[in-house]
Structure formats: C-alpha cells, structure tokens
C-alpha cells in the first residue's frame, strides 16, 4: 500500500485552484430571522441570490449584510425550516419568519461516504435524532435508540454499568458470534472489539463483555442512522450484512460562540428482586420438609448485603461556534455511575474536538477533523457468565442461607470453610477488579470542491485503545482456588485500527428534471490486537493490593503469557450512482469490491452490488389535486452484503509456541475461506397524510444468508477440534416493519405526538445437512456439559433442544417424556414481534415524554432457577420460594429441561421524562431547562427472573447463544434529575 502516493494525489488536487467571486458591495441591510412562533433562529443562513456570499444570524436571530445594488433577493435557510426567498429591493430592514418544514422529507441522512436528502432515499434507513433519544443514564449510544426504530432490537445483556448489548437488525442471520451491526462514527467504521482484557480469576468464570461504544459520550451525538436493507448497507460490503449504524456527532454551527452545560444526578436501585425465602420462611420450610439441619438461628438477606443505591453524576460542557469558513465544537464529559451492586460502576471521562476549516479565497479546500478521547474505569464484581458450583456473586447472594449471619457477633464477616457456601458480602469484600481503558479515535478529512459538480474527500483515521485490568481475590475468601493463598491477575490489551479512504463525488443537475449523483472511492483498513497477561497465586498479605506486589509469589506460581492476533487488512473499491428523475423516479446503484487479508488465498476479493428504486407517487400528475396524501412513495431494493467476522489467520496454517518451548500446529487452515453472503430484498412504502400529521413507513424484507461462516468440527485427526468453513445451508430472515408517527393534538399551547413501531420477524435455518450444532451452555452445580440450544435444519436459530418436562412422580422426582432419554426441539428465544412506543405531550413550557418497548413470542431459559435456587438447596442454602410444596423431592436432580423455559414476552416502560423549559433567564442563561426522568419504571411480563430482556453469553465453541439468563447483574430502576442551559 503506497500511502505516500495518496498524499501526493491530495496535494495535486489542492493545486487545482478555481477562481472565486469578487463582488462590488454598496448597500447594507439588517434584519431578524424568527420561526413561526416568533422565536429567534440563531445561525440561520442568509444568502444573496445568485452569489455565494451571505452571512448567518447571530444568537438573537439578527443579521447585517452588505449587498450589491444589483441584488434584490435574499435566500434564508435553516435546517428544519422551509427555505424562503425574500425580495429586499428598496428595503433596509427585513423581518423574516420561517415556516417549519415537513422535516421527514428534507432531513439529511447519512448513507455512507456521503449524505443524501431523505426524499432521495431508496433504501430502508431510519434516523433518530438527539431530541428523540432515550433519556436517563446511558453508557453507550446503542441504548439511546432502544425501541425507537422498527426492525432494530437492542437487548441489554445485563444491568451492569457499561455492559455489552446485543443489537440485531432484522433478526439473527449468522450462526456464530459477529451478529452485531457495523458501527460507523463520523465516517469511520469501527472495529467491533474493545481493548478490555478478559480474565478468569479464582475459578469464578468469565465476566461479561464491555460495550465497545462506551467511549462515546451520549450527549455528543447529533443523530444515528440505522441502515437496514442491503441496498443501504451494500456500500459497506463485506462488513455490512448485519446492518449498519452510523453515529454522527454534534458539530459547531456558524454563529456566535455558545457554551452548553448539562448536569444530572441519578439514583438507581434494583428493579426487581427474585422471590427467595426469608429466615422465618426458611425455618418453616425446613420443618415442612422434615429437615433437622440448616437453621443457623440468625436472620439475613444475601442480596441486601451486596446491593446499594447507586448514585450517578453526569456533567457535560460543550463549546461551539464558528463562521462560514471555520467552525468547531469542543466538549467535555464526566460520568460517574455507581452500580447497584457494591463495588461496581463506570467512570467515564470524554473529550472531543471537531471542526471544519475552509481555505483559499475560493473556500474550495476544507478540512474536517474530529478527535474523540476517552478514559473509562470500569469496576467489576465477580458476576460471570459461566460460574460453576461455587457460583458467582449474584448466585451466592441469592443462595445465601437466610438463617446464617452475614457478620459474626464481633462484626467480622462470617466466612465458612472451603467448599461451603460463599458469603456474598465477603466475596464482594475480597474481590477487586478494575478495567481501565484509554481510547483515541481521531480522523482528519480534507476535501476539495473543484466546482459545483466535483468534490473530492479523503479521510485518515486512527482508533487506538489501551486497556489494563487489575484483578485480585483476597486469600480470606473460601474459594478452593483462593483460600489461604490469594490470586491476582494483571492483563493488558491493545487495539489499533487505521483507516485511509478517498472518494470523489459528482453531482449535477443535467437538466431541469434529471439529477445525477455519483461517487467512487477507495478504502484501506488495518486491524491489530495484542495483549500481555500476568497471573499469580500465593501472596503474603492482602493489606496491599496483590496487583501492586506481583513479585511476591514464588516464581513457579507466577504465569506470564502474551499474544498478538494476526493483523488483518481490508482494501476496498466502491461506488454509488443516484439518478433523480423529476423528483419522482429515483434509482440508486452501489457496488463495492472488498479484498480482505483474512480471506483464503483462493478467494481474496468479494463483490457486493445493490440496486434500488423509489417512486414518489405524490409528484405524479394524476395525484395533483388529490389531498389525501401529502407524500406517498414506494421503494424497492435488492443487494448483496457480506460478513467477515471470523478470526484473522483462519485461512492459513499457524504454528504456535506454547509454554516451556513446546510448539504445535494450532489450526486447520482453510484457503477457500471467504465472506458470508447476505442477499436481501426490500420493498417499502413511505406515506404521510392529514397535512403530514400522520406519517409512516412499512417495509417488507427477505434476507437470505449463505456461505455461513462457521467453526465446524474438524475432520479428525486434526490439530484442533474445529475449523472455519463456509457452511452449506442458508439462514432466512423475513419480516415486516411498520413505523407510524402522528401528531394527535396540535394547538398553540398543547401538542401531543405519538410514535409506534412494530416488527414481525421470522427466522429459519434451511438447506443444512451437516450435524446439528450445539450451543447454549447451561452452568452451575450438577449440570456440567449440559447445553440447551441447537442450530438445526428447518428450525429458527438457537431453537431450544431439551428434555420435555412433564411433572413429578409420586416420589417427587422429575418425569420427562421418553424417560428423559430423548430430547426435543422446542420453542426459540427469537422474538416474533418487537414493539416500540414513544409519546410526548407539550403544554406551554412543560413537556412529558414517555417511551417503552416490548418483545413478544419468545422464551427465555432460566438457568438461575435451574441451578442457583433448586429445591435441593434446602437444608444448606436458599431456594426459590415458588418451589415450596410443589411436590418435588429434595433429592430431585435439576436436569436441564423444558421446565426452565419461560415465556419471555414483555413490555417495559423504559422512560418517562418531565421537562420544564425555563427558556432564557435574564441576559445570561439561555434555553435553560430542568427535568426529571424515571428509567425502567415497570415491566409487564410473566418471566420470573430479574428481567426477560437478558442475554448471558453461553456460547459453545464460539457458536452464539441467545436468550439464557444465568444469575446476571440485575437491572436497575433509576430516577434522575437534570438541568441544562446555554451561555
């Protein structure tokens, strides 16, 4: 790759100067720009018609402009308002009132390597703007759009601050990990990984992943565009198959410098508790079951010993401003979120600087720049995905015998001998785990406008993350691997990705009815990931944090390892053509060729084309005069996208070096390995009626994913149990999405808006003849090796495959269909219907916004009920209250079965926010507002666990699981107070 050449090219481009305009100026005009309500519009653009000169309105909407005598007309424009032309002949003062525009049609939507007017869109794209984001405490941007967009499912994997989410656009199409959409931040596609080292200390299991988007400050985001169908995502080629989410950050606008300040404080508590026995109930249960032991005479509550009210502070300051040639925005954010579990939380510091400068007299050359820096400190509790019989913190707390004291009489922690129940308060005390990650995402993007038609833009960006994680488990805790010794780990990880692209855009109104927009470009990306791990056991004291004295243990008890993943490179050529005929017929075609170093030597390049067309029916002659539809457009599209989320290095033979100098072939090389292909057809209708008071979109899609990337059983004898192949077979996702927005009441003082979106999904694996693929591990005591899900031909992905539980026999033992010797394909965890509801009531300066979302027609496997709280615990530790008197014997084995499948359907009231818009306070404060928000106010569900919206990672050999709960970090309910103002 000749990077030097790129810069040389750019330099050449900048030399192509084009003459600017020179104007005679000899009169002055002043004026004020307001909206239809009479409020000033700072930053409105005032342009002299027929020229490129003009100005912008100041903070009070006022402007002053010199113009040549020959000029008679001003063009006044502002985003969201209808552009107006005003005749100013013979005038020195004008007051201009702009009318709000039907925003759904004029919004600019980011489509990848450029933007387009919403009316020119031919694909299925949804945009959510900052004003519509979910309020409350969010740590990552994906939570902002939960429930806002049809076809988009965002599941918080657990309630832990900063935890990963499961994001699915139009269902699950892949049979391994890597189902998350591609995130693009201000034109930079991200690596899906985060530099947080993983670890497993003291046999407690794997802690869940962190959200890779934690480095973004929610209040820096201006809008998010969700690209759903292939005609929209094909421009991202081999990384577009799971859909694309484009995050655009706020930018400075021309006008006076402004300072925006926001502050909020929140209080969080557990949303829902599980029903376990208290001390008296426990004693009664012991009697009921004729148990003599198990009463330790005290009264305690394990969950209370690890929970607290979490306080969250959030402070943000942003400065922005600029003029026609130079604008900037700088922001600083601090979020200190305490988790509802003791010793957990997320501290986050963010700083961003972005801007645009234009150079040369002609202002043809410009540079956009964007720097996002962040530092997160995540404090973790030992709450893990796959804890064995010692359990993880939440499991230990749920299980804690309520008659057993947590503290001894002398105030010390009551710690039992090794092998016995673990005191959750002691566990929390003994466990220290902090992950620190520093992030830099920087990009610089020069552009050159040759003339009205041609524009060239290039971007260079670096995404650099360094993470370090220190974990120690103090020697006093009665875990077999830790007691009397202590255990610690210090792990680091480093992520480095680089991107270089360049593209040329050509835009020309060829004649009055024919507009051509074309783009062609090149992109190069490189991804690197590496890390170093140290762990040790046997420390002399826990008075000092173990990770500060790693030299203390004997050398033989210290283990050192490091790794560097194969680097991967992606080189792409792409282009797009959009033809607009009379604003009625719009055609878009895109093509991307992706070469990836990951692909096998026999398949280096993949080609991803797409076509789409839309027909704006309301512009047709025969619709003229019709009053019913304000807008009616049809869209159809078809495209091919790819997925290349398999580990780099899988296509070639790798010899690894083990400890003690041993060496081995570590994989089965597959030189035929290539991208997974999704072909998607989409047809949609956009409409608005009743004077745009009701608008909506309906889409049908059919997505067929083939060449499924899959870690397949290797043909033994082989150096590994699995290897990567493109699986014969296909995953079909089809469905219908509906989104409606309505203005129910629209008076001077009172407005009521409502939005509803629904998604109907169907998913199936077809044409697959290989062995059934197992996933969905079930963990805990007595279920080693149990799994719950399968990928099998003719069934939805992750279909539950389990014994059928019938009931109990007269001895209280479980009875299963066919004696439990046969397992059955049962229901699946993929919701059939997704629902999102948003509403806003505005009365004068008050506004009340509420949003909720739900999912229906799916089941969740309750691994918590299965192995953490079974009846057999009675006499030693706690049980689920619902088990009392259910006819089950204490000795009944809790085999994984359909008994623990529960209906997961739910509706959750995510968010209610009451805002009072104070407006301007004196001459100093502007746009001041105060608000209160309630988050996760209630959930309507039959599910008995913490939250039906859960996804504990229970993958087997990297095959993704879905819809299993295993003693996760509980979901929080939060009340928040906030204020914001500008200066």
């Amino acid at each position: 790759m000749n990077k030097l050449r790129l810069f040389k090219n750019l330099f050449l481009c900048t030399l192509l100067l084009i003459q600017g305009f020179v104007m005679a100026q000899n009169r002055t005009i002043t004026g004020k720009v307001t909206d239809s309500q009479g409020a000033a519009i700072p930053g409105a653009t005032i342009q002299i018609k027929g020229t490129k000169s003009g100005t912008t309105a100041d903070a009070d909407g006022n402007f002053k402009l010199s113009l040549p005598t020959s000029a008679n007309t001003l063009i006044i424009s502002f985003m969201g308002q209808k552009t107006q032309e005003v005749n100013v002949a013979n005038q020195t003062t004008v007051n201009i009132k702009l009318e709000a525009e039907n925003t759904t049609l004029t919004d600019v939507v980011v489509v990848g390597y450029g933007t387009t007017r919403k009316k020119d869109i031919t694909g299925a794209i949804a945009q959510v703007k900052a004003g519509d984001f979910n309020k409350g405490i969010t740590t990552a941007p994906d939570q902002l759009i939960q429930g806002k967009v049809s076809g988009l499912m965002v599941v918080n994997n657990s309630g832990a601050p900063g935890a990963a989410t499961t994001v699915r656009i139009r269902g699950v199409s892949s049979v391994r990990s890597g189902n998350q959409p591609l995130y693009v931040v201000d034109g930079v596609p991200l690596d899906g990984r985060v530099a947080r080292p993983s670890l497993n200390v003291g046999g407690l299991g794997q802690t869940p992943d962190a959200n890779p988007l934690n480095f973004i400050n929610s209040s820096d985001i201006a809008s998010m565009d969700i690209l759903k169908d292939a005609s929209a995502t094909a421009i991202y080629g081999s990384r577009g198959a799971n859909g694309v989410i484009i995050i655009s950050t706020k930018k400075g606008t021309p006008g006076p410098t402004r300072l925006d300040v926001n502050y909020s404080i929140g209080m969080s508590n557990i949303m829902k508790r599980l029903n376990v026995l208290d001390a008296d109930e426990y004693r009664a249960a012991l009697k009921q079951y004729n148990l003599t032991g198990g009463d330790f005479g005290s009264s305690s509550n394990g969950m209370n010993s690890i929970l607290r009210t979490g306080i969250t502070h959030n402070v943000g300051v942003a400065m922005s401003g600029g003029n026609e040639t130079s604008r900037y925005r700088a922001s600083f954010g601090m979020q200190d979120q305490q988790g509802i579990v003791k010793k957990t939380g997320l501290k986050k510091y963010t700083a961003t600087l972005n801007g645009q400068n234009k150079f040369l007299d002609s202002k043809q050359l410009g540079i956009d720049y964007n720097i996002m820096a962040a530092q997160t400190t995540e404090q973790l509790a030992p709450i893990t995905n796959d804890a064995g019989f010692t359990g993880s913190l939440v499991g230990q707390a749920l299980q804690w015998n309520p008659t057993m004291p947590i503290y001894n009489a002398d105030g010390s922690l009551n710690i039992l001998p090794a092998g016995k129940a673990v005191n959750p308060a002691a566990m929390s005390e003994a466990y220290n785990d902090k992950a620190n990650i520093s992030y830099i995402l920087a990009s610089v993007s020069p552009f050159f406008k040759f003339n009205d038609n041609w524009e060239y833009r290039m971007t260079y960006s670096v995404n650099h993350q360094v993470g370090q994680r220190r974990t120690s488990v103090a020697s006093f805790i009665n875990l077999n691997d830790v007691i009397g010794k202590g255990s610690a780990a210090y792990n680091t990880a480093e992520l480095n990705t680089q991107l270089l692209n360049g593209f040329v855009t050509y835009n020309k109104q060829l004649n009055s009815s024919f507009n051509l927009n074309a783009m062609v470009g090149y992109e190069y990306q490189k991804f690197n990931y590496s890390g170093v791990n140290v762990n040790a056991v046997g420390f002399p004291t826990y008075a000092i944090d173990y990770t500060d004295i790693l030299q203390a243990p004997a050398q033989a008890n210290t283990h050192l390892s490091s790794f560097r993943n194969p680097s991967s490179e992606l080189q792409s050529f792409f282009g797009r053509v959009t033809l607009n005929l009379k604003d009625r017929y719009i055609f878009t075609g895109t093509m991307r060729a992706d070469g990836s170093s990951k692909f096998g030597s026999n398949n280096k390049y993949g080609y991803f084309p797409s076509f789409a067309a839309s027909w704006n029916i309301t512009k047709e002659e025969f619709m003229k005069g019709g009053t019913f539809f304000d807008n009616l457009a049809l869209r159809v599209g078809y495209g091919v996208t790819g997925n290349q989320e398999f580990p780099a290095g899988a296509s070639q033979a790798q010899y690894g070096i083990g400890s003690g100098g041993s060496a081995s072939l570590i994989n089965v090389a597959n030189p035929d390995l290539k991208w997974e292909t999704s072909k998607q057809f989409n047809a949609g209708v956009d409409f608005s009626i009743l004077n745009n008071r009701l608008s909506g979109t309906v889409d049908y899609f059919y997505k067929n994913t083939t060449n499924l990337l899959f870690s397949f059983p290797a043909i033994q004898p082989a150096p590994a149990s699995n290897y990567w192949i493109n699986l014969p077979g296909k995953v079909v996702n089809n469905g219908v999405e509906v989104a409606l927005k309505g203005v129910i009441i629209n008076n001077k003082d009172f407005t009521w808006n409502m939005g509803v979106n629904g998604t109907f999904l169907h998913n199936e694996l077809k044409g697959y003849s290989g062995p059934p693929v197992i996933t969905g591990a079930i963990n805990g005591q007595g279920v080693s090796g149990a799994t719950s899900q399968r990928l099998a031909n003719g069934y939805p992905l992750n279909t539950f495959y389990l014994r059928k539980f019938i009931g109990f026999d007269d001895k209280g033992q479980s009875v299963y269909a066919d004696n439990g010797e046969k397992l059955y394909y049962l229901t699946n965890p993929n919701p059939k219907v997704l629902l999102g509801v948003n509403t806003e009531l505005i009365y004068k300066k008050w506004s009340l916004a509420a949003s909720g979302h739900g999912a229906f027609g799916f089941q969740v496997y309750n691994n918590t009920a299965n192995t953490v709280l079974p009846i057999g615990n009675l006499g030693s530790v706690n049980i689920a209250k619902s088990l009392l008197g259910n006819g089950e014997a204490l000795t009944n084995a809790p085999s994984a079965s359909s008994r623990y499948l529960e209906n997961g359907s739910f509706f959750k009231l995510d968010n209610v926010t009451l805002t009072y818009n104070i407006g301007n306070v004196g001459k100093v404060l502007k746009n001041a507002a105060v608000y209160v928000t309630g988050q996760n106010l209630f959930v309507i569900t039959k599910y008995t666990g913490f939250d039906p919206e859960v996804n504990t990672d229970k993958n087997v050999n990297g095959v993704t699981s879905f819809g299993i709960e295993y003693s996760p970090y509980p979901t929080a309910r939060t009340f928040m107070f906030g204020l914001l103002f500008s200066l």
Partner: protein
Amino acid sequence: MTYNIFRSALVVAACVGFTACSLNEKLGDALVRKDADSIIKAPQLLQNAYNNLQYAYQDFSQTWGMSEMSTDEALGPTRGKDWDDNGVWRELHEHKWTPDHAHINNSFKGLLLLQFSATNVLNFRPNPGQEAEARFLRALSIFSVLDLYGQVPFRNPTDTLLNAPKVMKPAEAIEFMKSELTAVTPNLGNMPATQAYVANKDAARFLLMKLYLNKGAFLNRQAPTFDAADMQEIIKLADQITASGYKLADNYYDNFARDNDVKSTENIFTQQNGPGFSTSRLPSANNVFCRWMCTLHYSQRPSGWNGFTTLSDFYDKYEPTDKRLGGFYSGVTDTSGLKVGFLIGQQYDQNGNKILDRSGRPLIFTREVQLRATGDQVEMSGIRVVKYPPDFLTTKSTSENGNDASNDFVFFRYADVLLMKAEALLRTGNAPAALLLVNQIRLKRGATPLAALDLNSLLDERGRELYWEGWRRQDLIRFGKFLQPWQLKPTDDPKYLLFPIPTSDLAVNKNLVQNPGY
C-alpha cells in the same frame, strides 16, 4: 465536452486510483508453515504431543471415565442437585450411552489430537530417538481409539487436513501398531536409565503385550480368541521388561504418590505432573488431582467435588488384610486425616475429630449407593476411592484444590506386566506358572496366596491390583464379562462393547461407519 470528460476521468483516477496493495496476512504470535519449517524443531512438537496425553488420559471425564465408569469398579451417582450433568455418568454405568454423549465425543477428538500431534513430529526432521518416541505416542493413541471405538481414522504426516482420512479397521490397525512398535523399540531409551515419563523400550514392549493380549477381542469382541503364538510373544516381552530390574513396590501407594517418579519401583510409563506441567496444558484439562477431587466430600481436606464411588460388590473382592485397601499414608493422613485407598464409614480429620457433612451430621460413607442417591444419604452414600495420595507439599504455596499436584500419572506399571504374563501362561495351559506370578503379587500386597488360578480369579486379581487405573473395561471385554449384569446395571446389549462414533465426526468423515446398533 471531450476535454471535460477527460479532465473528470483524470481527477477520479488521481484521487481514487491508488495502487492496490497485495493483501498478505501477517500472523502475530504464530508462524506460517514456511517459517515454522526452519524455526520449529522436532523436540518442541514432541513436547506438545506428550502434553496432549493429559486431557485424553488424565482427565476424569475422558478415556478414564469411559474405561472405568462403564464397569463394576466405578460409579458416578447423581447426588440430588449435584452430578446430574445431563446423565453422562449414569449412562456410562447403566450402558445407555448415545452418540451424543459429550465425553464420548470429546475423548474421540482428544485421542485423535494426540495422533495428529505425534504424527506431525515426523514432518520436522526428528532424529531417530525423537521419531521413535513420536511413533510410540501415535501407536498409543491408535490403541486407545481401537479399544474404545473399534475403528481408527488415520492420517499420514503429509495428508491434507481438509480431506477425510482413511479409517483403519481392527485387523489393519493391529498390524500397523505391531510393526510400528517393533520398529521403534530399538531406538527408544533403556530403562531404568530413561525417566518413566519419556517413552522407552519397556513402554513399547508393554503396549505390544497389551496388543497381543487384546488382539482377539479387538477382532471379535463377543467371542475373543487367543493365539498361542501371541501368548508366547507376551511371555517373551514380559521377560525382556523384567530384565530391566523392576520390583513390586513395598508400599503399593508409593507408585501413585507425589514423589512416585523417585519412589516407585514399578512404573514403566508415566506422564510428568507438577507446577508448570499441568496448568499449561489444554484448557479445562485436569491432571491426576481430579482422581481424588471427584471422589472426596466437600468437608474433607482437600475439599472435593463429592462425586464418584466404587461399588460394594467390587469392594468385597478384597480380604481385610489386603494392603491395597489402603489406610494411613505419610504426608497425607498426618496432614489432613485423609486415608488412601478405599474410604468407608466415619471420616476423621488429622486430629481425630469426626468430619461433618454440610448440614452438620457426621460424615459416614456408606457401603451402598444408588444411581440417584436419595434422602439423608445424598451426600454420603458410596465407598470413596483415593488411589493417588493427594499432594499437600507441592500445593502448599498454591492451592490444595489446584491443578498443580506432582503425582505423575501412571500409564503402565510392572505389576500389570506380571499379570499379563500370568494370563498368557494361563491361556496357554500353564496355570501353575501363572499362579506363582499372581501369588508373588498377592504376597507383596498382604493378601493370602491363592490355591489355584482360573480365568475368573485372574480377572478378580487384575481388578484388585489395577483398580481405577483405566484397564477394567478392556479386561471385562477380553474375559467375556462386559455384558453381564452387575450392581446398578441389570441388563445390557452387545452394541455397548463399542462406543459409538460421535455424530459430528461421522458427518464429516464418510469413511467412518457407525458402530452396529447405534
């Protein structure tokens, strides 16, 4: 217009048309084959092959579980909420397993991984000694796959991994192992000069003895035959091994103790364990410490997983004086109160205090056990078995429950050489000579000498001497007893003489044919 088009094309070309780079994937912490050829040396790959013994043989869930839990010697009872594990342990004992059995699946892969890694040594220019070790390890893997699954997928060193390998049927596999073991013996180290954890001449001879002895069973499991010539080979090989100077140990349990590499006078082939050996091996692989962990109660020290037991009928095969029943062992019983061998009745700590179970009752291991332990006996039922004396010394600075125990894992032991020779003699009509060998062992173990020897009493003696060492299933099949009912296994079916080929392996290698009945 032409000019415009030309200019436009130029601009596009200048701004977009970078020279495409060639996409070469650079590996990070690994080497591509070409570099590996010159950098990696045979001993490094050989070490890896040895490492691959651990999961396949030492872990309690793999070949060991298949070879012992499926017999009258061992049982993994379900204890209320514990040890259900999808029924894998009950299925093994009841002979009800299916091709989806997780451990049967993993063992197949683990053993064939050993074959692969041993074979791959041959691609890296080993010297004759290294080559002999690698071929021995390969033969051991083939032997186990043949024993358990009845057919052996086999790859030559240069075979491509994307193609299905050929599958050896029993006769072919037997001939192959015979010629391999015979060929490599001269190039292996002599005993006792060689450490037992390095493949040596006697290890190859031992494996050859096993092969001759089980040949008839491998060819016909329902009606094994025994060639006189094969028996003579066994006797000859036994004498060659004896000539290396092995002696039956004065203390039976020294063969399995933490310092068995020094103390044992019987061990022929072992795997080295200890810090730096065990923890670095395959993920989730346990070393020999899992032998005691899976049987000891939570309240004992080391605090175990309260699982496996033996059965009372098997326990009753011993006389009370038999030292193999166990008892005090220095460094163990004085440290934690734990005795070695068979644990029955009340358990005590090192100070003589009664150990209590988790609900506060005295911990008394009962004689009898059920597949699903019930009632008050749920934690306490069954006789526990501690064949390897737990290592308290090495694990002092780490964890008594950790994977660092130094007891080397015993594959081949001299007592078995004597018993195999006795069997060869007995099967060729020389019962008196066989009786002498058996009584030589019994005397050393504190048992009354037998007056006469027949196949039944020889099988019993093999059970008593080699209990929980992973030979019982093979022995029961060879003696034609594997399908007979025994405690908690009332019925059987001939298909269980072989384990099934795992479903996923069957699907990817069309040369494999599912064993009859599955």
